[in-house]
């Protein structure tokens, strides 16, 4: 048995709505699959132990840590990253609010922040500031001090709720 046979996994999954087939090392993490194998560098590695949230992406609709998710688990999975969410306009209102409120500085945490915020906003309703802060507490930002991020998420939640009513 060759090393390749033992240590490599054939994988088929969907990333940003596109079918992907590839062979990866058995120990490949999702964040490395995205960045190294697919060139999707919008998701970032920050701490590589699941604390900072910079690698947050959607897997089958749920936000997950790209650095803790093993790629071989993802056969048949539906993965969305900031690139695909942007192309499909799925976070356009959040992105516009982040820019308008300057809810990003260096931008390194931002793709993960947007994915985390999307999960909260898509759940509907108008979360309180405390609820927004609690929900976003898995995503580390060293630059902003968080208030602008909370403001931006709050604005989008309110706008969507008003849009749903009208």
């Amino acid at each position: 048995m060759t090393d390749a046979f033992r240590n490599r996994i054939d994988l088929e999954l969907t990333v940003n709505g596109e079918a992907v087939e590839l062979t990866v090392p058995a120990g490949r993490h999702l964040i490395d699959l995205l960045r190294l194998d697919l060139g999707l560098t919008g998701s970032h590695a920050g701490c590589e132990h699941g604390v900072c949230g910079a690698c947050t992406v959607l897997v089958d609709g749920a936000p997950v840590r790209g650095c803790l998710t093993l790629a071989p688990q993802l056969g048949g999975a539906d993965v969305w990253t900031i690139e695909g969410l942007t192309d499909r306009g799925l976070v356009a209102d959040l992105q516009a609010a982040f820019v308008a409120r300057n809810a990003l500085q260096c931008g390194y945490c931002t793709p993960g922040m947007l994915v985390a915020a999307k999960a909260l906003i898509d759940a509907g309703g108008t979360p309180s500031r405390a609820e927004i802060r609690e929900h976003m507490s898995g995503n580390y930002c060293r630059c902003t001090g968080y208030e602008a991020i909370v403001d931006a998420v709050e604005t989008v939640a309110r706008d969507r709720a008003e849009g749903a009513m009208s």
Partner: protein
Amino acid sequence: MNIKFDDPNRPNSYIGRTVPRPNAGRLVAGKGRYVDDITLPRMVHVAFLRCPHAHAKIGEIDTEEARAQKGVLGIFTARDLAQVCTPWEGKLAHLEGMKTPPQSALAIDRATWAGEPVVAVVARTRAEAEAAAALVIVDFEPLPAVTDMRSALDKDTPVLHPQFDDNLCFRKENATATPQKAFDGAHTVVESEFKIGRHTGVTLEPRVIIADWNGGEGELTAHVSNQAPHMLQVLLAKHMGIPESRVRVICGDVGGSFGVKVHVYPDEVATAAIAKIMGRPVKFCADRLESFTSDIHARDHEATGRIAVDESGKILGFDVDDWTGIGPYSIYPRTSAVEGLQVTNLIGGPYDFEHYRVRSTTVFQNKGICAQYRAVGHPVAVAITEGLVDMAAAEMGIDPIEFRRRNVIRDDAYPVTTAAGLKLEGLSHEKSLDALVEAMDYDVLRAEQADLRKRGIHRGIGIASFIELTNPSPFMYGIGGARISAQDGCTVRMDPDGSVVVLTGVTEQGQGTEAIMAQIVAEAVGIRPDMVRVVTGDTRVTPFGGGTWASRGAGIGGEAALKAGRALRDQILGIAASMLQAKAEGLDIRDGQIVDAASGEDRLPLEELGRVVYFRGDTLPKDLSRELMQTRHYITSDYPYAFTNGVQASYVEVDTETGFVKLLKHWCVEDCGRIINPQLVDEQIRGGIVQGIGGALFEEIVYDDEGQIQNGSMADYLVPMSGEMPDMVIRHVETPTQESELGAKGAGEAGTAGAPAAVMNAINDAIRPLGGQVTRMPFTPERVLRALGTLKD
């Protein structure tokens, strides 16, 4: 002398407005290009074997097994790299008595902290390089570790560097003629100890570099996450023996810096040296453990301070003895002496008093290297000063706002030279206190606090006035012989369609440099900001400058941009006058149109002028100057620094059963002179406050007695997350510096300077009636409970 930017109805009024950042749209789309996003042809990866001991002799290095691993392409030790790279010493000539030994890219013979790079392993992938590095066998012989700063100079403490007599890096005393006089017979003297924990920057993007050697051209290109590309260019050139013109440093998107990325790091220099040896691109990207063990640390100060006050509540003097341990080497090229030095300058900064003595002692130890990090020295000096001020006010039964009103330097007293010898051009402590009281509704808040106290809810209000050093002249680094530029430059070029490209020597790490440069140049030339494209961070094309640190981007880089933009405007109007057979003084540029200055009537679109100059220059007079590209450089010279000032307040609730501190709200009134973009300034302040709160409540690198980090992960080194942070109210007073036409001072560090002291004073305000007081940051629940006497063992 300032230009008047006050009239919002003036033409092209972009300075002073909130204008969106041009790079934000790209970053929210995940289209940032950070260094680790870059892959170059033939690129290989380096991983480092780092010393696992705090202090060890390096014996034989056995690389045989590692070398045999699949994918391994090279293994390098200190002696290999010494062939292409010389060692360095982080010294400044004017810091009398300062010492530090030579430092190399990889440790030679002896490693001096746990995390110092010793062997470099290059492989096809990072994973292969790491796996092979684990198989390198180094015969380390552990040596005694020096870890405690207070006993570092004791006779029985081992001397860390054999070439020196002791572990002293630098000692400085700054004192007035008779410092003791304040304390002889003073009405009130208060003394306390203070401790500021050892912090690190925790940039979300780690340090990362790709070095590429092009042998055919003898040129080194470094893509690096750094704040000061020209500094790195000249230092790589110097230590690798390459002409500066053949070193190109490119700093694209940088994922947070805060001072972490303004230094020369051995692993980054090693990467460049290896690229030169191997003749191909080499990438090094720190993992999070490497960030904790090899990024610069900061603070780690212990101090004893006294304040003397007369019977009227007037401060007579300060007397502070400050200690800090900075690891085994002084950082290159800025030195690790500056944080202590700044403490000797900044104690008592906001106040008018006569007697002063501050001594700071900087010692070597076997821990990570400490160096400049956001608000260098300020959080330490402000915590000591404001801690003592609040203790004195409490002792005398004077309200802390009232106590400060009696003691701050009057707004009409400037220019002032302080007891510490700082030259202050113009500050606004009184106006700032007024604005704070109004923003907080101070009396109502005090009433609420008293009311809740009766119901057993312990809330506290903490105030912290501060001054902040910005816009540095060559006063610190230049005169010390470091090749760190205090001047900065800007080139503006009009393209044929009337749009403008700006090349600036200051850099962008998210502060909004590109936005403010676009605003300044748009206003100076007379076009819309969206017609301006800003280029930063490439030493091959931008004017030679210092980069972004010490809150200098807006004040120094911005002034260069204003001057360059105005020079371009003058040039355009000179050409337009010739084309229109008018006088240049009678013309103006507004919204990209050359207009009659008096009537505002359109005379000529810029794109028509561009067409003629670039494509039909034959129709212009032969001797007409037509350089639609202008460069200006700017340096401050009247004052060593442009000081800013402000005051912060924190409102907290202390749970006396658990020791947890809940941050309810935070206020900051800040005076950074001319505000170019109000939103960007506010967000700099907010981000800075939260970084300061981190130090007050959570952040501390913990070493054991053997010099091993105990919390080198983000799960263990706690940083502020959104759940615990308060909303922050930001207000401004504007006292522009008269030294420049723009009038801008820096705003990047004020938040961090004042927040820890405000939080400390708020906690103490809450627990003082219970007999408690905290002065050792971070104020963990355990420390709060100890202060309350709940925990005793």
